[in-house]
């Protein structure tokens, strides 16, 4: 006989999703699948472009930098996608009673802001962030994305060394007064669940409101919300994938990202190879989707700067957005630093870097042009397999772990 306290079947289902965190690999597979859907509908997942859109709208509204032709966020697919990641994470945090406004010590807040600024510079110089230029760029068979990935790794190593030095020499930076408000631990928290349901209804109404005029947006709203919710529940974070094997040696964050990349690799290759959803544009245009003109130096420079920024901030592009949704104030500051710096970097830093680099250091490199679709698929799959082997081997031996 079942225990009366277990509740109804639907209550059990709710507890399955929101009672405890999901394995990261489950989150990785689901977000990888949603990324393929997004590409089938329009174009793959990206985050920095959406955050940049928010910043441009802010500067435009106060009349700074003469940004007159900015698309309003409610009509910008990626601006809305990023906004809905926050909404989805907020829903996930509310349903699991994990939402709280967490104010960290001052030193952490400074690092959050600075990390956001660096991520903005890295994303604009490197043409993409951990999502556009990595999580989507690598399955898109872009040569530049692979260089960006190595850049990220170098940036993470540099910043991790800094964090360890800081913890040793200036431990007070990450300690001191902190505050936590609106938490709902223990048996409290029905209010959070009620607000969560109100948010779900709000998202549904918002998605429906676009059905008449902009159907693609309907799906961006739904998928963006799911990205946020799934990432929050599974703690899916790309900085974790790069950082943790080198820090504590743990591999589960990396395995989650590798799983998502593998799903994306299959889906993206099929979409590109068969020209699915070409929609009037040429097959070549579909093939070159998410292949940016950053091979190789631009991707390397952007990747290193972004890698440093995300490690200092403690959240990559998506990690920042979903942590904003669960109330981490440090990441609110990262988001503010990112959105304010991205348009400034696009206007003043990117033209300077572009002026220094000749064409052969910033061109579009589509791997199948050189080694065919089969070779490209095998190359990316081999890199992912090697990465998996490395993090698992390192987890056992601790050879490359700091602790």
């Amino acid at each position, binding site marked *: 006989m079942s225990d009366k306290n277990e509740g109804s079947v639907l209550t059990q289902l709710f507890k399955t999703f929101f009672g405890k965190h999901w394995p990261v690999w489950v989150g990785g597979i689901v977000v990888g699948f949603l990324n393929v859907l997004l590409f089938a509908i329009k174009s793959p997942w990206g985050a920095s472009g959406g955050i940049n859109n928010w910043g441009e709208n802010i500067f435009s509204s106060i009349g700074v930098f003469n940004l007159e032709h900015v698309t309003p966020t409610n009509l910008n697919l990626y601006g809305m996608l990023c906004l809905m990641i926050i909404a989805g994470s907020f829903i996930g945090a509310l349903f699991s009673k994990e939402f709280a406004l967490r104010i960290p010590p001052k030193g952490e807040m400074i690092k959050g802001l600075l990390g956001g600024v660096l991520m903005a510079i890295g994303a604009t110089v490197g043409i993409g962030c951990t999502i556009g230029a990595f999580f989507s760029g690598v399955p898109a068979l872009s040569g530049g994305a692979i260089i960006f990935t190595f850049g990220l790794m170098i940036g993470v190593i540099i910043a991790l060394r800094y964090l360890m030095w800081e913890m040793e020499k200036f431990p007070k930076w990450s300690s001191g007064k902190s505050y*936590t408000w609106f938490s709902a631990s223990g048996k409290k928290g029905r209010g959070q669940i009620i607000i969560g349901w109100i948010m779900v209804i709000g998202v549904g109404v918002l998605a429906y409101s676009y059905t008449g005029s902009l159907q693609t947006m309907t799906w961006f709203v739904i998928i963006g919300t799911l990205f946020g919710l799934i990432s929050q529940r599974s703690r899916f974070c790309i900085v974790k994938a790069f950082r943790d094997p080198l820090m504590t040696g743990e591999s589960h964050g990396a395995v989650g990202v590798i799983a998502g990349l593998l799903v994306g690799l299959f889906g993206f290759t099929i979409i590109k190879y068969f020209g699915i959803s070409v929609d009037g544009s040429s097959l070549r245009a579909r093939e070159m989707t998410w292949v940016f003109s950053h091979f190789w130096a631009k991707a390397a420079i952007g990747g290193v700067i972004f890698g440093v920024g995300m490690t200092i901030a403690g959240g990559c592009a998506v990690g920042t957005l979903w942590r904003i949704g669960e109330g981490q104030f440090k990441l609110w500051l990262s988001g503010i630093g990112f959105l304010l710096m991205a348009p400034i970097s696009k206007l003043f830093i990117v033209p300077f870097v572009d002026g220094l680099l000749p064409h052969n250091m910033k061109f579009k490199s589509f791997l199948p042009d050189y080694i065919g679709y089969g070779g490209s698929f095998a190359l990316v799959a081999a890199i992912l397999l090697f990465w998996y082997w490395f993090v698992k081997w390192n987890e056992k031996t601790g050879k490359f772990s700091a602790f």
Partner: protein
Amino acid sequence: MEITMTLDCKGLSCPMPMMKLSKAMKGLNSGDVLEMLGTDPGTKSDLPHWCEKTGNELLSQEDLEGGVTRMLIKKK
């Protein structure tokens, strides 16, 4: 049970709690118990993985008032 050391990670987010924990555990002796107080939900899933990997024992994990989680870890 005697608590050897208390590590206050309230207000800190990923990666600081796990970095501080790893460093603090290095300074303890076998059998010592560390009490960790934190507010980052991520630590709840990171800590069991870390204990499994390092062989340290997660004795308990409980939610207190104010969004604080208290975790007791015994050094192997």
